[in-house]
């Protein structure tokens, strides 16, 4: 599936879950960054990006995810990802993203971990 869709699936106190579907390129990355900015401005401090329906992220999309990470770190929040395809997991591993973010196999485990994150 390559058509991009972004949905805020859950907003609960500090936490917000964004469901991302389709190809993450420049336009999609900008949409994610704008939504993340809005959520942080509204007081959310833990953002979970569920990428279950995303098969490919290009390098421009990646650079925009780094903008999201920078915003989250500025407010001392937590950025987490879950349900990565193997190639996206490898991309994140190449970048070293696990150093600054949480990466979980699925949403349930991510939510459990984020609930325990101060």
């Amino acid at each position, binding site marked *: 599936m390559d058509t991009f869709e972004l949905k805020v699936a859950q907003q609960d106190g500090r936490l917000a879950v964004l469901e991302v579907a389709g190809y993450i390129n420049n336009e999609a990355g900008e949409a994610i960054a704008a939504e993340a900015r809005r959520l942080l401005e509204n007081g959310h401090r833990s953002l979970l990006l569920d990428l279950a329906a995303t098969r*490919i992220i*290009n390098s421009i999309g990646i*650079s925009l995810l780094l*903008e999201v990470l920078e915003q989250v770190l500025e407010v001392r929040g937590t950025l987490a990802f879950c349900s990565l395809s193997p190639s996206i997991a490898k*991309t994140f591993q190449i*970048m070293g*993203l696990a150093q600054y973010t949480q990466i979980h196999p699925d949403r349930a485990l991510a939510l459990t971990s984020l609930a325990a994150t101060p």
Partner: protein
Amino acid sequence: MSRTHRLRLVLPRAPHAELLAGAAVEELGLQAGFPRDTLEEVKLAVVEACLNALEYGNGDVEVELVAHDDRVEARVIDHGPGFDPRRVERPSLDTKLHAQRKRGWGLELMRRLMDLVEVESRPGSTTVRMVRRRGGG
């Protein structure tokens, strides 16, 4: 008996054109019996090469794909001003995170996802040749 699957395409200068090359990698690789996870990585590397070619090249961007029994090869050719790959800095997350410009991951991803990446570039012609062996990466 070994079989070689070949495909050549010229990308249109249209939104998401790079995905056409990615879809071609998947199609050709599946026909040649490569694992889907391997092809997803080759696809990403080819998409990155095409993005660079579409962004910096002029005129047509050509993509040649060949699936052998033991490897997939891709060539992405553009007709832009060219560049010196030795001068492309390797990105680091620590640096990029606090930098104004967070881009610059494309070549690094290609190199790490593929077994071989060669760049031949001069004014008017850049060819990126990439190879991924079966079981490599």
